[in-house]
């Protein structure tokens, strides 16, 4: 069902229940007031309508794009509420910079921060989560250079234009959306229970020390009369609940219109104590006091309060993180004492239970082998994040002449972000360290940051039909942006009472009281223009250009020029095609252009910075960083060739694109001779600076099929939307050498895909003796010998190599390129909608694959130290002849954990991302209670995943949007909190 309603005099809305992105008249926004009918478009745009967004239990609008649009890859980092989402359009397009696209809301760019939180081991804050998906009318993805060049130096990673709902003339409506539901982890790690742990641990010990007394001992340490057997995973994960309320008003006439909404949602996450509450409001209004003038305001305010967990993901190796503690904690240790207090030792670590001497075999030297109490840490420590966001713009458009309109628009993206971390003194950790022993204590850390991005745009658009056939549509304008980030942070400890954890002053606190401020400003100035030309609805051309200047760029490269052009030929309009009735519409199109990526350049990256340089007690200045006057954006040269077709009476719509993005001038750390003496840029090794020197490319194809599979006279209809994309990446030039990520086996290297694994090759466990074996660089077997002589290496079974002891194999010396990448090679979605009268069923599948994940979680849970293991360890080698990948247990000998292909696993998956059943009540019934429309729905989000991946979920990305690592170390699974399955039900009522 599709209804077209004219709104104003230039845009059209498509309101429908059915998926419908066919090439019938549909309008997409193209930026700076522009919009184009789909049939006339020659660049590569993709649009997602509101029907796919409303009432979705997604935590941010970008999540809703997952699988919906060809070429757009969305990765949820983990199941932690509000955690970062990785968005990649046509692959990873930078090495050290950001690969996140530019988001523009109602014509105004949003801040490029991928994570606004700065405190370590804390939550991540995804600024996109502040946009209420229910307020979104549509999202348009600009993929090629012709489409994106109007955003110039910020467009290499693609642009996502978000358009919010507007009032509609002649339609007054009050809409109430209510939904509720629950969520649960899709999968939890299976760990050893108490008796398995006891047996495995003592086997580890006795394989090494045959006569040693057992260290893992089960008993009733808390004397509650029950033998201690704790499933720590169950202690920290729970069923979560969601409730969501949305109220929207909309009305309009020929003098003005408005859309207003308020919403509130409350999510209790699947991790104990993780809760996210969000309230938001929006007013979009437009007045048309004169026929030649209109003015409007679009404004939203969002307030979110996220009660998180310390180290939820990114820093999941931090002891305090739940996935660290709960997965390591020994199961034969109780959670509570008999009196209900947490079971802790004298230093407030997790107690030892009935075990004797486990800590000797736990190599966490900082805590002397002890672990933090997983549940107490979650419950007593706080990591809260309060975010307030004002997104708004006001504009005035004047139409002095027919066809010409001039707009001035002022926009603001204001974020106030408050991070709060509290470490409780009654448990081990920072809180206890700072005075916990004296009954004082606790550590509070607070950061408050304001980020203000203001935008001023002035542009004119002119459209005119010359003669009968020459249609011109031109835009020209000026824009400036100013982004100011300002933060202050403070910390205090030695609190006399926990009540002071929220507000403290006057602390006697000689050891830990820190405070400071920081400030950072970036400015942009830009000129842009676009010309669309159409001849006789048959031949099309679009020229786009932008000149961008940024305060980030070096003085010699202050202004960049970014042109793009595309042409289209609607071949189906040619006489020779008129006989081919099967083809209703066919348009060939091609585009080429130059865009930039400046998101990886910090605010003062091009300048010489001279800061404090204390000399003993004497104040002085030191050079912190040297200038780079030629520092500039990374360049993307984008080519796109494709066609749009509609065949079989418009029942099948096809979009096909071949694309290529040659990225040049990649910013890489380039070493200078040490004897130059220059200071290095922050984040780089000694005597190195970022310079524009590298190259790589992304090439691929995209296919979208929108089909009406079945339509019966009885009203049954089955439509589907399928998309597929295939992507190849290659790093072609790295003149300064490889670029390392945080993991040794992943580095960008010339001639290889940026996410290719370079790993030590795992051979297997030697069935004869249970020793782990790898291959060295030359294909010889290196075996680690637990036996006699213990702790030595064997080379093809020999204990010496060239008369010397055999060196251990390592990724650095023996790693081999695997040809396997962390980033998916192919991905897409398949959405099916079945409707019959008022009933509608949507089944949405998402898939991705061709990639490999590094299951670091599995590696860590196969430890031979005295912490808990995954149940996979039960398959260890025990006697000669055993074929397994888990070597003979040997206490604290964790050689098998070294990075190797053993832990690289296929990441292919097919996810049933959404099953949604909706029922539109018959009008006769809904009118009985005064409603024009009542829609009931129930859905399961993330219903099931088909995958061979042995970890919790193949959709995982520890590095999220953290610069270099997010580009190179994509697809590392490092104790991420599990993804969630969500069940929701609710109703939408229109009055």
């Amino acid at each position, binding site marked *: 069902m599709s209804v077209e309603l004219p709104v104003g005099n230039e845009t059209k809305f498509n309101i429908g229940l059915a998926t419908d992105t066919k090439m019938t008249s549909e309008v997409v926004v193209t930026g700076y007031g522009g919009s184009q009918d789909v049939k006339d478009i020659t660049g590569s745009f993709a649009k997602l309508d509101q029907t796919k967004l409303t009432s979705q239990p997604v935590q941010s609008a970008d999540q809703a794009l997952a699988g919906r649009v060809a070429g757009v890859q969305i990765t949820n980092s983990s199941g932690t509420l509000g955690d970062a989402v990785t968005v990649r359009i046509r692959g990873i397009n930078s090495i050290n910079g950001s690969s996140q696209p530019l988001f523009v809301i109602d014509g105004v760019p949003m801040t490029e921060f991928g994570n606004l939180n700065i405190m370590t081991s804390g939550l991540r804050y995804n600024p996109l989560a502040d946009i209420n998906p229910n307020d979104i009318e549509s999202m348009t993805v600009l993929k090629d250079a012709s489409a994106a060049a109007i955003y110039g130096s910020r467009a290499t990673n693609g642009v996502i234009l978000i358009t919010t709902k507007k009032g509609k003339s002649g339609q007054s409506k009050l809409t109430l959306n209510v939904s509720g539901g629950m969520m649960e982890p899709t999968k939890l790690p299976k760990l050893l229970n108490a008796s398995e742990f006891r047996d495995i641990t003592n086997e580890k010990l006795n394989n090494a020390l045959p006569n040693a007394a057992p260290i893992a001992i089960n008993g009733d340490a808390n004397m509650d009369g029950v033998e201690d057997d704790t499933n720590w995973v169950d202690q920290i994960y729970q069923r979560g609940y969601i409730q969501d309320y949305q109220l929207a008003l909309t009305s309009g006439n020929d003098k003005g219109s408005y859309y207003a909404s308020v919403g509130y949602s409350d999510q209790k996450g699947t991790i104990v104590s993780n809760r996210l509450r969000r309230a938001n409001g929006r007013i979009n209004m437009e007045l048309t006091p004169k026929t030649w*003038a209109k003015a409007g305001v679009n404004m939203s305010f969002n307030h979110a309060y996220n009660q998180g967990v310390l180290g939820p993901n990114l820093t999941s190796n931090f002891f305090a993180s739940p996935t660290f503690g709960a997965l390591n904690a020994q199961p034969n240790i109780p959670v509570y004492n008999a009196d209900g207090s947490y079971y802790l030792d004298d230093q407030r670590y997790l107690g030892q239970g009935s075990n004797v001497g486990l800590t000797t075999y736990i190599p966490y030297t900082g805590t002397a082998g002890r672990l933090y109490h997983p549940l107490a840490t979650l419950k007593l420590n706080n990591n809260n994040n309060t975010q307030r966001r004002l997104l708004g713009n006001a504009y005035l458009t*004047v139409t002095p002449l*027919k066809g010409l309109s001039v707009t001035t628009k002022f926009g603001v993206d204001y974020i106030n972000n408050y991070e709060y971390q509290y470490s409780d003194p009654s448990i081990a950790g920072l809180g206890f360290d700072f005075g916990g022993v004296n009954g004082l204590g606790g550590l509070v850390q607070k950061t408050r940051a304001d980020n203000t991005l203001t935008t001023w745009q002035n542009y004119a658009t002119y459209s005119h039909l010359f003669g009968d056939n020459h249609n011109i549509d031109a835009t020209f304008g000026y824009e400036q942006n100013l982004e100011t980030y300002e933060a202050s942070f403070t910390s205090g400890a030695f609190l006399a009472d926990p009540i002071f954890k929220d507000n403290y002053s006057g602390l006697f606190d000689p050891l830990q009281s820190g405070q400071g401020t920081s400030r950072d400003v970036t400015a942009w100035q830009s000129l842009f223009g676009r010309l669309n030309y159409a001849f006789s609805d048959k031949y099309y051309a679009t020229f786009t250009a932008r000149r961008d200047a940024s305060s980030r760029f070096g003085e010699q490269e202050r202004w960049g020029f970014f042109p793009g052009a595309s042409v289209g030929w609607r071949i189906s309009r040619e006489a020779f095609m008129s006989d081919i009735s099967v083809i209703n519409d066919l348009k060939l199109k091609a585009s080429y252009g130059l865009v930039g990526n400046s998101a990886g350049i910090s605010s*003062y990256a091009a300048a010489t910075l001279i800061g404090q340089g204390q000399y*003993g007690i004497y104040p*002085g200045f030191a050079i912190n960083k040297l200038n780079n006057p030629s520092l500039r954006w990374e360049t993307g040269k984008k080519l796109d060739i494709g066609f749009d077709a509609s065949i079989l009476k418009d029942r099948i719509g096809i979009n096909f694109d071949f694309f290529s993005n040659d990225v040049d001038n990649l910013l890489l750390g380039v070493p200078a001779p040490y004897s130059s*003496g*220059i200071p290095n840029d922050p984040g780089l090794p000694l005597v190195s600076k970022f310079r524009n020197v590298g190259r790589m490319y992304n090439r691929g194809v995209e296919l979208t099929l929108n089909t009406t599979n079945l339509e019966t006279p009885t009203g049954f209809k089955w439509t589907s939307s399928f998309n597929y994309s295939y992507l190849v990446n290659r790093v072609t030039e790295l003149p300064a050498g490889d670029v390392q990520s945080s993991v040794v086996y992943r580095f960008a290297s010339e001639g290889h895909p940026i996410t290719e694994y370079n790993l030590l090759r795992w051979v297997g466990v030697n069935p004869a003796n249970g020793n782990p074996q790898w291959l060295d660089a030359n294909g010889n077997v290196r075996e680690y010998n637990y036996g006699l002589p213990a702790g030595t290496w064997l080379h093809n079974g020999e204990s010496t190599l060239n008369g010397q002891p055999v060196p251990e194999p390592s990724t650095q010396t023996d790693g081999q390129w695997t040809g396997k990448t962390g980033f998916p090679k192919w991905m897409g979605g398949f959405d099916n909608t079945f409707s019959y009268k008022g009933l509608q069923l949507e089944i949405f599948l998402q898939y991705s694959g061709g990639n490999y994940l590094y299951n670091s979680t599995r590696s860590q849970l196969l430890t031979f130290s005295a912490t808990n293991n995954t149940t996979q360890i039960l398959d260890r080698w025990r006697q000669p002849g055993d074929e397994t990948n888990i070597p003979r247990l040997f206490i604290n000998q964790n050689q098998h954990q070294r990075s190797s292909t053993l832990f690289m696993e296929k990441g292919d998956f097919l996810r049933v991302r959404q099953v949604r059943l909706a029922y539109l009540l018959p009008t006769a019934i809904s009118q009985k209670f005064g409603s024009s429309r009542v829609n009931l729905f129930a859905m399961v989000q993330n219903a099931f995943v088909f995958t061979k991946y042995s970890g919790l979920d193949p959709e995982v990305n520890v590095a999220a949007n953290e610069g270099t690592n997010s580009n190179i170390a994509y697809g590392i699974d490092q104790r991420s909190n599990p993804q969630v399955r969500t069940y929701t039900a609710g109703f939408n009522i229109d009055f």
Partner: protein
Amino acid sequence: MKLTFPFIGRAALLSLLLTAGAGCELLDQQSPQDFNPDDVFSSPGRVDKAAAGMYDALQDGEFLGSFALIYSDVRSDDVDLPSGFQNLATSTLQSGDGNALGAWAGGYRSMYMANYMIRELTRRNGAGIPADKYNQYIAEAKFIRALCHFTLVNLFAHPYRFSPDGSHLGVPIQLDAPDGTEAYQPAQQKPRATVKQVYEQVTQDLKDAIKGLPVNQGSTNLNVARATKDAACGLLSRVYLYQMQYDSAARYANLVITSTRHQMNAEAKDAFSVTAGEERNFVSDTESIFFIAMSQNDNPNTNAAIGQFYAPGTSISIGPYVRALPGPFNSANNLPIPNGSTAANTDRRRLDLTVYRTSPPPARWWTRKYTGNLPSGAAGNSNRGAWIPIVRYPEILLNRAEALARTSGITTEAVSLLNQVRDRSKPTSAASYTTASFANAQALIDAILTERRFELAFEGHRYYDLLRTAAFVPEHGTGTIKVPALAWNDPRSILPIPANELQRNPNLVQNTGY
């Protein structure tokens, strides 16, 4: 075409569009927490802080702030085989060694700010500061640059005498402060100059420095913390000594001596005395000429401060040094023992500046030059705020004494200079030297070198004093752990050019043997 609203309205809007392009200052954003160079060189007060920044760079723990001294002394016969720096101590390191790279990079990093001052002050025609200040800062920069080059050439090249005319390879001479672009140009791939060229540059820089440096930097502490005319003369006398130009060495040492601005302190320990936890104070210290200043809050810190390696219980114990000093021995194992040591039978430098500790085992001797060294004599732990001695008056006396002995043989003056250093520390039972004490000039020279070893221990001198005098570094160590002897011209007696630097700079030639 019909006008839909008054012409004036259109005009206003169009002009709005056009004026919007104004305001290019928007793009000139400056970091709120940093200066740009123009701001730094905008006032005399700021330029003076930039000058202090040259010394801040000199505090580099990888170089003269700590390791450059250690790298000399751990290779000398003054230490036991240390628990760290083993490859260095045994002269078995590889060209990829991190210490070698650290010293190389640290040396050039330490002189960057000095070169930058010269560059900017010259480029800005003095930046509007008074001429005397301009001359002073340039002179300070040249002093620092000379000190860095001299230290680098000692670390990475054979001593001057290795070839007849010093024509063997030294280190690249860095007189530029390349900016972010220039650092990548071929001109910065500097080849190694010869040792002679390096010495010529060092000598020239020091001579220039002597002209521009003040005799007084404004306070007792600043007179030590910042370079003075005496510091430059003193350092130059050492440079000439190393270069075997003894007349010049004697002459520049004499400039310091005859200035009478410096005298020997009453006791050897006075130059290293500091109350635990407090900052160093030179109010009653007249022999310290130039130290690199440190403070409790500003120093190379836990990982690199020199005291972290020399304090009791850390890396470097000093058994062989103590054994060389007069004092009681255990005749059974020929190890020095603290029991029974008195001012009569023991050198004051052993009594006051070393400490014997049985814990952690094995029992060892440690220097106290970099500990929290209470005036009362109790040994403290590592003092991260310990200043780094570079030029001290006793060295000047010994420089001149040695130079005189080498040019004029046994003279009253040479013996008197030696006695000035020796007499305040020798066991009271030992007699002062007279000209009759020495059979020949070489005996006097040997006595001077021995005194140099005693007095300047762990200040980065001993190893180079052995090499420059063509002496073997004797086998040393304690018990069965011995470091074998090393010839002064052994290829391994100098550090390798770091492998990493050879990749960055194809014009460099590796030292023979690496």
